[in-house]
């Protein structure tokens, strides 16, 4: 039972405070040296190839960068104004608007924590001003923020596609309906709670405000059209879409909204335009804001990829020791059907999600369960969406829930309080997980409709 020792070692190292990446890499390296003929040089090769040899993973830095430009550059603020204009007048209006804004931002950003930071920081403050409890506000945003990885684009989907060689474009399409569904379920829950508890609602500000806010936000929201239209219209691949999104967000943030960069001015003052300062077209490349945004996105990429690269070394161990084949044989011999198998996958991921950051966990688990799923006749795209939803739930359950940490940070609340606050809505996501797991057509209908039936090459 070498595998059990391997995983125990990984988890043990993590729990005493070794960085996640090093825990994965160290345990795997020891195993490769003891159990196989693999050289240390080949581990270094895996490390380098984690970046240089996995073309799909390139989407990660680009989507992170696009997100950074949009958060810094005022896109989030305008999306929130637009959301309030549309749904703010319902009971629980500002909370519903918060979820709606998270959904819109999720359609621009590939990451959940980024969505919480961008939307949460503003919306939580706003909700408290109109009389919501801080707990309610934080609970709503921590949950809605997880939509960042379910509504395309999604870094976690990119990682899944890379680990299993399914099409990124297909995965993105598969997330659309479940993403809209999860968002709607959260909004309905808030509406019901608001009716029961008589929570505050905003005033209907009229169609003028809807159109004004919509026009103001449209530059940012147009990115949805660019990303999806570009991918499915044959202009670029999903990976390139991420780079185009980053460039577009950079231009909007600096030259249209001008909340950052050479045209930005102090708060409350009108921004300069390119007509006043044409030199900005050049100076923007050397501007402090540009460098800082690039640097922040780079730093986040580095920490994330350090985990993924080490998880790939663990994957190398699993491949080398032919672990997936052994597990598959045991499971098939035991006569497990698809339903039992999916239950097991859900449990593994929910437990794993307690310790691991989603992308790293996915890199390890996907190659383990993918071949078995294919043998059991489970659709790879459906499996991918199940895994993504599990990751979402992992983000809001302790002890390692990225969204919990981020929410506790932006809301200035203790972790325990955030966990309690997120609990009622977590129930909603659990119901949603069960629906997604046992109704495959929710995930497969749209990609099949738009891209034709899927090919399974394994």
């Amino acid at each position, binding site marked *: 039972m070498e595998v059990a020792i391997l995983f125990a070692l990984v988890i043990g190292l993590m729990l005493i405070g070794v960085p996640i990446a090093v825990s994965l890499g*160290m345990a795997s390296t020891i195993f490769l040296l003891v159990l196989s003929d693999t050289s*240390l040089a080949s*581990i*270094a090769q895996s490390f380098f190839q984690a970046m240089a040899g996995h073309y799909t993973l390139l989407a990660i830095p680009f989507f992170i960068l696009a997100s950074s430009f949009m958060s810094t550059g005022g896109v989030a603020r305008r999306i929130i104004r637009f959301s309030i204009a549309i749904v703010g007048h319902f009971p629980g209006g500002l909370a519903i608007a918060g979820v709606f804004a998270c959904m819109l931002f999720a359609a621009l950003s590939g990451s959940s924590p980024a969505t919480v930071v961008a939307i949460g920081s503003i919306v939580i403050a706003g909700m408290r001003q109109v009389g919501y409890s801080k707990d309610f506000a934080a609970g709503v945003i921590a949950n809605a923020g997880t939509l960042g990885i379910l509504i395309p684009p999604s870094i976690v989907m990119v990682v899944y596609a890379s680990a299993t060689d399914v099409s990124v474009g297909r995965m993105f399409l598969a997330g659309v309906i479940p993403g809209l569904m999860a968002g709607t379920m959260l909004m309905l829950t808030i509406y019901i709670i608001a009716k029961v508890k008589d929570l505050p609602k905003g005033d209907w500000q009229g169609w003028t405000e809807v159109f004004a806010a919509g026009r103001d936000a449209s530059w940012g929201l147009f990115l949805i059209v660019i990303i999806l239209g570009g991918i499915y219209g044959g202009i670029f691949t999903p*990976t390139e879409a991420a780079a185009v999104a980053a460039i577009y967000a950079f231009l909007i943030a600096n030259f249209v909204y001008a909340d950052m960069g050479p045209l930005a001015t102090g708060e409350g003052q009108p921004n300069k335009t390119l007509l006043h300062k044409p030199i900005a077209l050049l100076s923007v490349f050397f501007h402090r804001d540009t460098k800082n945004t690039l640097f922040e996105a780079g*730093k986040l*990429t*580095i920490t994330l990829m350090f985990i993924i690269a080490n998880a790939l070394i663990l994957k190398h161990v699993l491949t080398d020791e032919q672990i997936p084949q052994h597990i598959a044989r045991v499971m098939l011999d035991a006569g497990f059907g698809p339903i039992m198998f999916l239950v097991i996958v859900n449990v593994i991921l929910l437990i794993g999600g307690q310790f691991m950051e989603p992308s790293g966990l996915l890199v390890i688990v996907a190659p383990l369960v993918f071949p078995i799923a294919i043998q059991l006749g489970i659709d790879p795209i459906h499996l991918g969406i199940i895994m993504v939803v599990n990751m979402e739930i992992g983000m809001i359950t302790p002890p390692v829930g990225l969204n919990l940490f981020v929410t506790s940070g932006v809301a200035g609340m203790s972790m325990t309080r955030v966990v309690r606050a997120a609990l009622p809505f977590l129930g909603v996501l659990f119901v949603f997980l069960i629906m997604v797991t046992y109704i495959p057509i929710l995930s497969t209908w749209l990609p099949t409709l738009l891209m034709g039936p899927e090919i399974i090459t394994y």
Partner: protein
Amino acid sequence: MSSHYEPKGPVGRFVHELEETAIAVILGLMTLITFVNVVLRYGFQTGLTWGLEAVSFLFAWLVLFGVSYAVKVTAHLGVDAVTNMFAPNVRRVLALVSAAVCIAYGLLLMKGAWDYWANFANLPQTTGRWFPTGFEEMTRTSYRSWYEVLEVPMPEFLRFLEPLMNEGETYEKMPRFIPYAILPIGIALLLFRFIEAGWRIWTGESDSLIVSHEAEDAVDDVAHMNKGD
């Protein structure tokens, strides 16, 4: 929230600025090359065939160069839920053990990185499976400086390497030892930063190697909006 890193002294500040600028510039280049290639293909039916490979190498450079910086500023993710339950003195011991694990990891990876890169640069690998026990005797097949990448052409200003590394033969593409050089360099820096971090814990200057969540800076920037109850 963990504290912000403050570089010390003029050299410290210079290095810090250099690291941050390099990270920003590499990511910027990756984005630009990819974007330009989309424009060339869609708008002009052409493209830089080396673009894809160059961006992949830059990606590896970004991460391998940046991991050491992330150790320096304590940006690597970890789990502190368990360690937080212990008394400070136990925590300190666990942090020292963690640092030792990180240094051991750095040492193993350093040997691997050198061994992988060395032959591509016509240099000897180390012998030994876990620990370097010496340098190998170079054999006919230990010279791999002829090994070129797939697409990225040899830059003209590097042609001086040909007589040194390739017996005077011209390189059509860039030889692999150039992009791969980031492995020993990046891992050496990583090892150095791990040792430094271990020392900081030893002297009591810091108490942990990890940050428990990402997006820390962004969180700090906006947390003031939600102070109080």
